[in-house]
C-alpha cells in the first residue's frame, strides 16, 4: 500500500466525520497557539530588558562608592564615618588599565534652571565628554561636553530635549545662556529625544562638566564612575583592574563596589529565559491534553469502525496496514492542527506586537519547533494504542459485529 493511498484513505475517513475531526484539530491548534503566544510574550519581555540594558551602553563596568557586605559593626560606623568618596582622581587613575577604554565620572544633583522668566527644577548630571559614547546617548544639535581635562570647570551645558523645548520653544538654544543655581552656563548642545530607559529620562536632564557640577553643588565626590571596557572579553579584566587600582589608591581599603553590566544583564536574562520556559511548559500541558483527547476520540473511532476494519482485513489488509491507516489519521490531524495553531499563534503574536509596540514579542524558533514537535509527538504517541487495538482486531469478530 503506497503512502499516498494511505494518506488519501485516512483523509477520507477524517472528512467522513468532520465535526469530530474539526474538534480534535481545534484542540491541537489551541495548544500550539498557546505555546507560541506565551513563549512569544516571555521572549518579548526578555528582549525588552536586554534592549534596555544595552541602551545604557555596552561593555560597561560600573564603580559605586561604598561596599555592600555584611561585616558586623566596623569602627568607622561607630565614629559616624561615611565611606570614602570616589574622586575625579580615582576616575582619572582608572584609565591606566589597559583593559579600560573610556571612563565617564558621574555626579548627580538637582537644581533650578532658568532662562529669561522661565524656570523649573531639573536633574543635573556632571560628567565628561566621554559620557556620550559610554552611555550611548545621541546628540540632537550642537556639540557635547568638551573632552580632555576632567578638572576644567567650563560653564557650558547640554540640555535634554524636553528642557530645551520648555525653555526655548521655537527659539534657538545653542549659544544662549541659562542660569543653573547661582551660576550661568552657555548651551552648547541638545540631546536627541530618547525617552525613558531603565527609569531614567534623558529628555529631562541637563549635563554639565563634572568639575562645574562639583562647584555648583559644592561637593567633590562622584555618584558613579562608568567604565567602558575595550571589548567584551576585556570586561572581567577591567573589573579586576578597577578594583586593584582603587584598592591601592584607597590605602588598601575595599570601599568601592565594582559591578559589571554584563553580570546584571546575565541575571535578568536567566530569570526571563526561565520564565519563558515555564510559561511555555504550562502551555505544552494543553498539548498533552489535546493528545489525550486525540487518543480518546481515536479509540471511539476504532470501535465505531470495527466493521470497516474487519472488512479491510477480509480484503487482505495486514495488521501493519491498518495500524498505518490510523497512524496516518493521527499525523494528519496533529499536523494540520499544529500548522493552524502556528498560524493562529503567530497572528496572536503579531496582534500583541501591534497593541504593545514597545514590547518586542517574537516567538523564539526553539519554542515554535518544540510546539510543533510536541504536537506531532503527542498526536502520534497517543494514537499508538488505538492503532494497535485496531490492528489486532479479530476479523471474524469484527465482521460479525452489527
Amino acid at each position, binding site marked *: *500500500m503506497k503512502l499516498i493511498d494511505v494518506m488519501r484513505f485516512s483523509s477520507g475517513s477524517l472528512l467522513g466525520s468532520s465535526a469530530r475531526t474539526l474538534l480534535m484539530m481545534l484542540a491541537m491548534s489551541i495548544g500550539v497557539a498557546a505555546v507560541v503566544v506565551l513563549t512569544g510574550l516571555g521572549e518579548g519581555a526578555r528582549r525588552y530588558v536586554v534592549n534596555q540594558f544595552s541602551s545604557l551602553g555596552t561593555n560597561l563596568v560600573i564603580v559605586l562608592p561604598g561596599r555592600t557586605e555584611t561585616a558586623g559593626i566596623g569602627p568607622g560606623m561607630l565614629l559616624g564615618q561615611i565611606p570614602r568618596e570616589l574622586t575625579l582622581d580615582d576616575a582619572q587613575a582608572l584609565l591606566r588599565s589597559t583593559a579600560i577604554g573610556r571612563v565617564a565620572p558621574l555626579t548627580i544633583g538637582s537644581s533650578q534652571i532658568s532662562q529669561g522668566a522661565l524656570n523649573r527644577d531639573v536633574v543635573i548630571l556632571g560628567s565628561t565628554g566621554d559620557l556620550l559614547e559610554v552611555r550611548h546617548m545621541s546628540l540632537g544639535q550642537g556639540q557635547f561636553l568638551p573632552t580632555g581635562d576632567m578638572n576644567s570647570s567650563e560653564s557650558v551645558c547640554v540640555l535634554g530635549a524636553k528642557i530645551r523645548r520648555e525653555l526655548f520653544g521655537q527659539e534657538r538654544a545653542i549659544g544662549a545662556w541659562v542660569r543653573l543655581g547661582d551660576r550661568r552656563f552657555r548651551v552648547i548642545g541638545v540631546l536627541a529625544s530618547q525617552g525613558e530607559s531603565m527609569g531614567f529620562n534623558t529628555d529631562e536632564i541637563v549635563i554639565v562638566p563634572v568639575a562645574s557640577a562639583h562647584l555648583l553643588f559644592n561637593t567633590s565626590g562622584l555618584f558613579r564612575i562608568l567604565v567602558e571596557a575595550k571589548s567584551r572579553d576585556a570586561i572581567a579584566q577591567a573589573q579586576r583592574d578597577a578594583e586593584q587600582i582603587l584598592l591601592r589608591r584607597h590605602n588598601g581599603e575595599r570601599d568601592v563596589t565594582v559591578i559589571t553590566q554584563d553580570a546584571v544583564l546575565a541575571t535578568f536574562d536567566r530569570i526571563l529565559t526561565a520564565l519563558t520556559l515555564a510559561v511555555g511548559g504550562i502551555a505544552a500541558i494543553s498539548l498533552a491534553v489535546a493528545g489525550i483527547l486525540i487518543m480518546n476520540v481515536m479509540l471511539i473511532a476504532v470501535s465505531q469502525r470495527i466493521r470497516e476494519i474487519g*472488512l479491510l*482485513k*477480509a*480484503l*487482505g*489488509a*495486514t495488521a501493519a*496496514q491498518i495500524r498505518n491507516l490510523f497512524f496516518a489519521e493521527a499525523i494528519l490531524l496533529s499536523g494540520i492542527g499544529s500548522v493552524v495553531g502556528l498560524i493562529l499563534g503567530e497572528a496572536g503574536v503579531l496582534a500583541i506586537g501591534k497593541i504593545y509596540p514597545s514590547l518586542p514579542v517574537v516567538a523564539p524558533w526553539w519554542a515554535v519547533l518544540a510546539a510543533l514537535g510536541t504536537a506531532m509527538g503527542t498526536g502520534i504517541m497517543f494514537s499508538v494504542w488505538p492503532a494497535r487495538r485496531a490492528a489486532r482486531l479479530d476479523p471474524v469478530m469484527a465482521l460479525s459485529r452489527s
Partner: protein
Amino acid sequence: MILLDKVSRSFTVGDQQVTALRDIDLNIAAGDYVSIMGPSGSGKSTLLNLIGLLDRPSSGTYKLDGGNVTDLSDEQQAKVRSEKVGFVFQSFHLVPRLTAAMNIELPLILAGITPDRRKARVQQLLEDYGLTDRAGHKPDQLSGGQRQRVAIARATGMHPAVLLADEPTGNLDQATGREVMNLLEQLVAQHVALIVVTHDPVIGSRASRQIHMVDGRIISENKAPADASDSTTDTR
C-alpha cells in the same frame, strides 16, 4: 485447490470448550461450485472463515493452491487473502463514505497496485457488473442488488482463485437474489472455486456440490448433475 484434512476448530467460551468443526475432510477443485447448508451453529460460517484464512484450524491441515496455509502468520494470511480469496457478505460490507468505484478499488489499493492499472481494472469491473453509471454513488444511494454487485466486483478485483459467499442473497428479494447468483455463477465458468453458505435450500440446490453440515460435521454431500443450476433457474 482447497484441501482440508481432518480439520477441527474449537473455541473456548467461558470455561467451556465448544467444537465448531470436527474432522472435516474436504477437497474442492478450481471451477467447483459448492454450497454449504445446515442449521445455525452447524459450523458453516466457521468453515467459510477458515477457508478464507480469517481463522486457523485447531488441528488438521489446510492446503490452498498447493501450498500449506495451516500455520501462516497473520501477515502471510493477509497476503494470501489479498491474492487468492474474495469475500461476499450478506450485509454487503461496503464502506459507506466511499463511492462504488472507490469500494471496488479498495482491495487493489491494499495490494499496492499502481494507480493507472487500478483505474483501468476498476473501469473494467464497473462495466462487467453494469455499474458504470453508478460509479460515483455512495452505498446509501444504491439499491440492494447494486450494492451486492459492487461487493462482487470488489471481491473479484484481484482475480481470486476462491470466492466465498456468506448468505449472499440473505438481504435481497428473490428476483434480485437470482440475479446476484447468476453473476456469481458466471465466475465458476472462469475456474473460480465458488463456495456459498446459505440457509435457503433453493439457493443451495443451484450448486453442483451440495454439502450439508450438522454439529460441525459434514453429514452428506449431494453431487447434482452438471446442469442442475440451470434447471432450477428454469423451474422457478
